């Protein structure tokens, strides 16, 4: 029945010479790239070449390892740290910008076009941005670690420029999205937060350069809310409404409830941001925590429904990490409440940071990535093959197991070290975290090696 092997793991249909279908198939083969594929009927490709999203995931893996090493180097400073320049600040930004946001860029470039049925507006820009973003993050982190404000400023300028361009690509994609109002709401919320994140970042850099634009505490509070809960948090919530049904083979959660959860999360962010300006901060922060808890409760209710009704209710370590992530957000909100009610910043503010950034976002991210990366690799390897490699065949399992145990152990150790304000325990936590991060790098490198080995050369795919 099949006549020729197509470019996406499917066989092309037989068609009489000169027929419309034959012309269409010929045209499709002629324009189809070997990697990434394209969509039916001459539509612009919605899947990027593998090298574009994977370079962001690769950078995220390396920055993750550097983050733990930066914490190892700055362990003595961490136990007293209050947000100033130094290696703890560098470690934090290697995680947030280097690992979390870099992965978010890769995932949004690869998955949102599929979900929204909108192609990435400029594939070249999506690839080129990496060359601005990654060196920018490296310079920024180095500037923070070495307490060199000018280096930090140069890195921040590159990062903000790259994020602005990514924001434009994301906005084009969301603007043309059909359906999925819940996901789209979270996407627009994340974009708005991204603007606030960039503005507050520039204000903080200006402070370090001796040209204050905003009060330091105000800028820091805005930066925290916009970065952790706004940009990353809303993306994590929104993408979960696409990814979890895919993982669990379940229906999409009720759109109205998605909107309700997203609305509560957005309200929490707006309230917390307003509190940063100093008007009734306690009342606004209490309201923000309440709205955040409502948003989380609704989100978890929807996720529970997905897992309960799906044909695949257990997806191993990935699901455990996602659940740890959700628990981390719950703990972060409880700690935020304690801080609003007067708990001392030492060590509660740092514990809040550990729960929100490492507990929630990092755990959730690694849960998603270890599920989606082999899947994406298999999809790209499928180009031109009738029998593509399975995701499990592309997955190096042992490094994933090492990463899983190390991540959880490092998380627990870091929480204890932070509460006890212990430098040796912080060093042990960072060492264990580094082992996990290296294991993740080994996993990612192995995946890429297997992808290259399985992929069909471009000429053969045509």
């Amino acid at each position, binding site marked *: 029945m099949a006549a020729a092997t197509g470019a996406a*793991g*499917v066989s092309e249909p037989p068609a009489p010479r000169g027929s419309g279908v034959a012309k269409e198939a010929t045209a499709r083969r002629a324009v189809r790239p070997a990697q990434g594929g394209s969509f*039916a009927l001459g539509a612009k490709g919605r899947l990027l070449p593998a090298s574009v999203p994977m370079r962001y995931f690769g950078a995220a893996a390396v920055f993750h390892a550097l983050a733990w090493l930066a914490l190892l180097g700055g362990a003595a400073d961490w136990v007293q740290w209050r947000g100033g320049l130094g290696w703890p600040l560098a470690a934090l930004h290697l995680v947030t910008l280097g690992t979390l946001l870099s992965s978010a860029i890769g995932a949004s470039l690869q998955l949102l076009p599929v979900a929204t049925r909108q192609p990435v507006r400029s594939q070249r820009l999506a690839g080129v941005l990496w060359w601005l973003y990654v060196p920018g993050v490296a310079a920024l982190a180095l500037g923070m670690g070495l307490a060199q404000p000018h280096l930090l400023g140069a890195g921040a300028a590159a990062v903000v420029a790259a994020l602005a361009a990514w924001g434009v690509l994301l906005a084009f994609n969301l603007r043309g999205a059909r359906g999925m109002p819940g996901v789209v709401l979270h996407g627009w919320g994340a974009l708005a937060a991204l603007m606030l994140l960039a503005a507050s970042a520039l204000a903080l850099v200006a402070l370090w350069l001796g040209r204050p634009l905003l009060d330091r505490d105000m800028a820091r509070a805005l930066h925290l809310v916009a970065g952790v809960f706004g940009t990353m948090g809303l993306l994590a919530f929104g993408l979960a409404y696409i990814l979890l049904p895919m993982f669990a083979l379940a229906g999409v*959660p009720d759109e109205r409830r998605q909107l309700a959860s997203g609305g509560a999360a957005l309200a929490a962010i707006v309230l917390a941001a307003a509190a940063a300006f100093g008007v009734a901060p306690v009342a606004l922060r209490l309201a923000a925590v309440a709205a955040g808890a409502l948003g989380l409760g609704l989100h978890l209710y929807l996720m529970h429904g997905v897992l309960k009704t799906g044909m695949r209710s257990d997806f191993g370590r990935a699901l455990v990490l996602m659940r740890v992530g959700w628990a981390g957000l719950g703990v972060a909100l409880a700690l935020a409440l304690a801080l609003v009610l007067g708990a001392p910043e030492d060590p509660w503010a740092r514990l809040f940071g550990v729960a929100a950034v490492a507990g929630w976002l990092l755990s959730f991210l690694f849960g998603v990535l270890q599920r989606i990366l082999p899947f994406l690799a298999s999809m790209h390897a499928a180009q031109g093959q009738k*029998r*593509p490699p399975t995701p499990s065949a592309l997955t190096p399992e042992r490094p994933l197991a090492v990463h899983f145990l190390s991540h959880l152990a490092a998380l627990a150790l870091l929480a204890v070290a932070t509460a006890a304000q212990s430098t040796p325990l912080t060093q042990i936590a960072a060492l264990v975290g580094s082992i996990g991060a290296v294991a993740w790098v080994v996993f990612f490198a192995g995946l890429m090696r297997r992808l290259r080995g399985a992929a069909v050369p471009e000429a053969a795919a045509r």
Partner: protein
Amino acid sequence: MSEGAARVWPEGDGTHIDVRGLPAPQPLVQILQLVRSAGAGAAVVVHHDRDPQLLYPELAQIGWGAERIAGEPGEWRLRLAPLA
């Protein structure tokens, strides 16, 4: 759950499923739900409005393959069956 349901009907060449117009990830989910409930030796014919790139790894994982067959204009039609 808020998804629209795909149209499913039997024909001589297998069970057909029309997922055109459904929002992501519903086409993927509903096709895989049908495939997983199909018996041994069964075939599934998918009527889609685009090349379902994300479907192929999932099919490969459960030992199924896909071949494109001729369909209506504007349609991406696939025949799914267990790989020999």
